């Protein structure tokens, strides 16, 4: 029965969302913040004892069935469950999100467009979605949480509704992740057909045991789903633009938790991947390519948030590498460490950006080391962890474990290791660029800014963990059922050398004007290899051209369909309005899908409804409708209000009953 306590983990944020979204009491800002804080931190309070009890082997695997339905051979069984993976991930998610929410309480109060109620409602909804995904013991709850996260991601990126850029970014994120989610859904459904149950405990072994062509197909679909959510190459384009959202959103959704959910998915379904060597290899290759690509792009960034976004892409690439080479436990260890230092980096960069000249560009960070020393120290700790400063940071331990595992994984792994090492060096380069920039003397001297303890508190906690968490990597890996790799000494030394070399390179890039200029000119790399433009040229433009051809150049074809007159002016007018709405003012077809529906609707109207519109059938219908009104008017008169009339009805009923009684006993 204690397993049902798990339901209490996603419930408080959901309740917080309901309270804040419905807002029955017109809460004031203080109440909104209090509600968000309670709802955001309650999961940690509930989850921490359970996760610790499980991780110390005090409490076994739990499963709490919610709803079970048997349909023929298939079984739909919703449940939440606790195993090592979900304990680790849920603990991480609850902890990081509590930190981010506390930070956001302070950060968002100063924001320009501060609709706190909407912000915290969505943050709480996101927490609920993420936690139900992490704790899910069946694919339906899993997918539900997965999609809920995507929805919240869209809303939170577009949080600033006055900015068209933010809105476009949200749309982009939504559409791109949706493409990948379709693949994930297909994979989960195929898996369901094979297993006959939605329980993960049955799905995963069934998927791993498949030896038909469907096995690799399912594994590949799952991989595509994970890559979309985790913004892996070539789906990465949405993440850098998603930085249009507020900094706490970037810290929670677009780095630490939601984006890394792809890695959680793959770790969860690791047996399915492991059963299909080709897909596992593809995972490792995709991961390492993304890691290198993300790191290289991050080096060229001029905006600290975009830099961190590319860094997230790159770091999650490492997690994919770990899953691909068959050590999902190591991937999850990196997930935990990454969540800690990446949310730290985002939040600290938010404080630094406020303290600096304004804006989130790296150049604007100059001098902030002196203005906000605590935040800067926290940022530096996070950057060190990200760069993998040997021995003293958590990032080094987990990344080193991944690289060493890759090194031990055969000839393909060797290549992956080599590329990963290069990416690690690049990681150190970009990680320390903001740090060194912040250390530089500012152009204009400004006094030390105020650092609210509400914002700095979480930073300090996370900074300590980002450094000291390295001690936990090895036990965590073992807990998750993995074996920490034992590479040769030179492999480890190579990793350490890469990081140190990268830091040196970073200093060179920051302080040597020649190199800095080259970085500033690397526009193509900065735009993420211009994948956006490529997508536009390859997919969007041809589609638009195709639609335009269909619609006859400027869309007159649509309006020609409409036959004016014939006593249906109202409908026609309305439909014409719809056509006008679907057409851009300058005549360019901007919404082909919407236009197509309008055309279809018009066609249906003309072909099927118009011939019938003012005829006898209609009149009969209307007659019937009026008849009901008249009948009601007449029936109303039965209610005279006179006792005698009611008594008459009673007496008639009595007489009828007596007659029936007599008739039934008549012989």
């Amino acid at each position: 029965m204690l397993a049902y306590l798990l339901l209490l983990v996603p419930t408080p944020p959901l309740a917080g969302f309901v309270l804040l979204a419905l807002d029955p009491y017109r809460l004031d800002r203080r109440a909104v913040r209090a509600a968000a804080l309670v709802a955001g931190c309650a999961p940690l309070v509930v989850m921490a004892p359970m996760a610790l009890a499980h991780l110390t082997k005090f409490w076994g695997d739990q499963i709490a069935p919610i709803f079970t339905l048997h349909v023929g051979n298939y079984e739909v069984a919703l449940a939440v469950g606790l195993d090592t993976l979900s304990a680790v991930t849920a603990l991480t998610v609850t902890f990081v999100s509590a930190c981010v929410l506390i930070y956001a309480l302070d950060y968002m109060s100063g924001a320009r467009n501060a609709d706190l109620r909407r912000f915290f409602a969505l943050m709480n909804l996101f927490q609920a979605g993420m936690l139900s995904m992490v704790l899910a013991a069946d694919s339906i709850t899993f997918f539900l949480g997965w999609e809920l996260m995507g929805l919240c991601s869209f809303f939170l990126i577009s949080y600033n509704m006055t900015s068209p850029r933010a809105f476009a970014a949200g749309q982009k994120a939504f559409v791109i992740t949706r493409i990948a989610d379709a693949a994930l859904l297909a994979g989960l459904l195929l898996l369901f057909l094979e297993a006959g149950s939605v329980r993960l405990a049955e799905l995963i072994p069934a998927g791993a045991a498949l030896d038909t062509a469907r096995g690799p197909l399912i594994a590949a679909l799952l991989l595509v789903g994970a890559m979309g959510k985790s913004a892996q190459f070539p789906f990465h384009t949405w993440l850098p633009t998603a930085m249009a959202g507020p900094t706490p959103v970037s810290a929670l959704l677009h780095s630490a938790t939601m984006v890394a959910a792809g890695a959680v998915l793959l770790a969860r379904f690791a047996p399915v991947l492991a059963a299909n060597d080709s897909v596992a290899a593809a995972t490792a290759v995709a991961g390492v390519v993304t890691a290198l690509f993300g790191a290289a792009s991050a080096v060229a960034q001029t905006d600290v948030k975009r830099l961190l976004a590319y860094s997230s892409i790159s770091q999650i690439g490492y997690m994919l590498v770990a899953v691909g080479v068959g050590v999902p436990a190591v991937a999850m260890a990196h997930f935990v460490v990454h969540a800690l230092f990446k949310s730290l980096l985002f939040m600290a960069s938010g404080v630094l950006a406020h303290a600096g000249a304004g804006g989130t560009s790296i150049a604007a960070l100059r001098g902030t080391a002196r203005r906000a020393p605590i935040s800067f120290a926290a940022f530096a700790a996070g950057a060190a962890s990200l760069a993998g400063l040997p021995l003293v940071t958590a990032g080094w331990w987990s990344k080193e474990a991944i690289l060493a595992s890759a090194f031990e994984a055969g000839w393909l792994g060797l290549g992956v290791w080599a590329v990963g090492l290069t990416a690690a060096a690049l990681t150190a380069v970009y990680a320390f660029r903001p740090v060194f920039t912040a250390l530089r003397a500012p152009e204009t001297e400004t006094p030390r800014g105020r650092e609210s303890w509400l914002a700095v508190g979480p930073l300090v906690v996370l900074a300590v963990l980002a450094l000291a968490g390295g001690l936990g990597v090895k036990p965590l890996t073992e807990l998750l059922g993995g074996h920490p790799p034992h590479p040769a000494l030179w492999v480890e030394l190579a990793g350490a050398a890469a990081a140190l070399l990268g830091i040196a390179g970073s200093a060179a890039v920051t302080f040597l004007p020649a190199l800095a200029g080259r970085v500033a000119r690397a526009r193509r790399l900065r735009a993420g290899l211009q994948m956006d433009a490529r997508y536009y040229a390859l997919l969007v433009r041809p589609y638009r051209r195709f639609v335009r051809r269909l619609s006859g150049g400027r869309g007159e074809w649509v309006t020609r369909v409409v036959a004016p007159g014939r006593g249906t002016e109202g409908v026609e007018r309305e439909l014409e309005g719809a056509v006008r709405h679907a057409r851009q003012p300058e005549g360019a077809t901007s919404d082909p899908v919407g236009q197509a529906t309008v055309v279809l609707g018009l066609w249906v109207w003309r072909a099927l409804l118009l011939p019938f519109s003012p005829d006898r059938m209609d009149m009969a219908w209307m007659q019937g409708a009026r008849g009901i009104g008249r009948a009601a008017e007449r029936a109303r008169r039965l209610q005279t209000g006179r006792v005698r009339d009611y008594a008459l009805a009673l007496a008639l009923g009595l007489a009828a009953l007596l007659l029936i009684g007599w008739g039934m006993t008549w012989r």
Partner: protein
Amino acid sequence: MTGVSVLLAIAAGLFAAGLFGVLARRTILMQLISLEIMLAGPALAFVAAGAHHGMVEGTAMFLIVLALAAAEVALGLAIYLQLRRDAGDGDADAARRLRG
């Protein structure tokens, strides 16, 4: 026709007479008197049937009917007085605020 049958027929007649009175009269007082007559019918039927079968339950049912009638008369007369105060006269049809 045995004796009890005739008495039951008389009881039915009493009931019908009372029913007619309730339906036909508009004065509340007359309706109440008619109700008494309506209740007297079953009372006679109970007692006659009890006598026929030699069972005391007939008389007991009569007592129940009696109590019912007493309560009904008390409430009916109170309502009558109330209506007369509100509507002026004792016309049952005047009290028709429940009209649809």
